[in-house]
C-alpha cells in the first residue's frame, strides 16, 4: 500500500516568512492533492498535481510535483496568520481514485 511521509510534522514561523512543506511517497504518484484543514474541521482543497514537474500556484501558495513523481513540496510565500492550519497531502490511487493521506503538517504563524 502507498505511504506518504510529510515533513516537518510541525512548523512555527514568524508572519512574513517563507516556508516549505514536503510530502514523500513510497510509490510513484499519479495524482497528488494538497488540502488545508483547521483542527476538527473539514478539508479545503488547495491544489491537485498530476504531471511530473508540474507546478501550480494559488495566491501565495505554490505546489510542485517532482519529475520522478515521488515527492511534492508546498511553498508559502510571506506567510500570514490566515495560513495557519494543518496541511495534508493525499495520493490518488486505484481505478476509482481514492485518496491516501499523510499525517499532516501543523503550521502556526506568529504575528
Amino acid at each position, binding site marked *: 500500500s502507498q505511504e506518504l511521509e510529510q515533513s516537518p510534522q510541525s512548523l512555527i514561523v514568524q508572519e512574513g516568512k517563507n516556508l516549505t512543506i514536503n510530502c514523500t511517497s513510497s510509490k510513484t504518484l499519479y495524482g497528488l492533492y494538497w488540502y488545508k484543514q483547521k483542527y476538527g474541521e*473539514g478539508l479545503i*482543497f488547495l491544489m*491537485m498535481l498530476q504531471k511530473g514537474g508540474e507546478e501550480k500556484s494559488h495566491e501565495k501558495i505554490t505546489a510542485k510535483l517532482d519529475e520522478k513523481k515521488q515527492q511534492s513540496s508546498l511553498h508559502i510565500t510571506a506567510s500570514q496568520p490566515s495560513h495557519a492550519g494543518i496541511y495534508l497531502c493525499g495520493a490518488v490511487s*486505484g481505478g*476509482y481514485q*481514492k*485518496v*491516501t493521506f499523510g499525517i499532516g503538517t501543523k503550521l502556526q504563524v506568529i504575528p
Partner: protein
Amino acid sequence: EPEVTQTPSHQVTQMGQEVILRCVPISNHLYFYWYRQILGQKVEFLVSFYNNEISEKSEIFDDQFSVERPDGSNFTLKIRSTKLEDSAMYFCASKLGRSTSGAEQFFGPGTRLTVL
C-alpha cells in the same frame, strides 16, 4: 460556489445503536466517497461509490457499514451497530470525473460521531 454538505455536524449515540450520516454531494458529480478521521490520526478511506454501486472499499468498511444514494442527491453512510472505536470525524467527498479537468475531489465539512 457549489459545495459538499453534510448533516448532522455532530451526532452523539449510544454503543450498539444505528446511525445514518448524510451527505449532499456537488450536483453534477459522479464519484462519491466516505472517509473518516479518528482524532489526531490520518484521514482514512472507507468506500467509493460510482454508478449506484460500491466501487472500492477498505478493510475498515466491514458488514456494519453500508452506503446508499437513495434519491439522486443524497449519499448516506449507515453504521448498523456502533462501537466505541467508530467515534471519529466522517467526511463525504465527491468529484466530477476521472479526466484531468474533473479529477479534483471536494470534501464536506464532516460529521463528528461520538459513541458513548
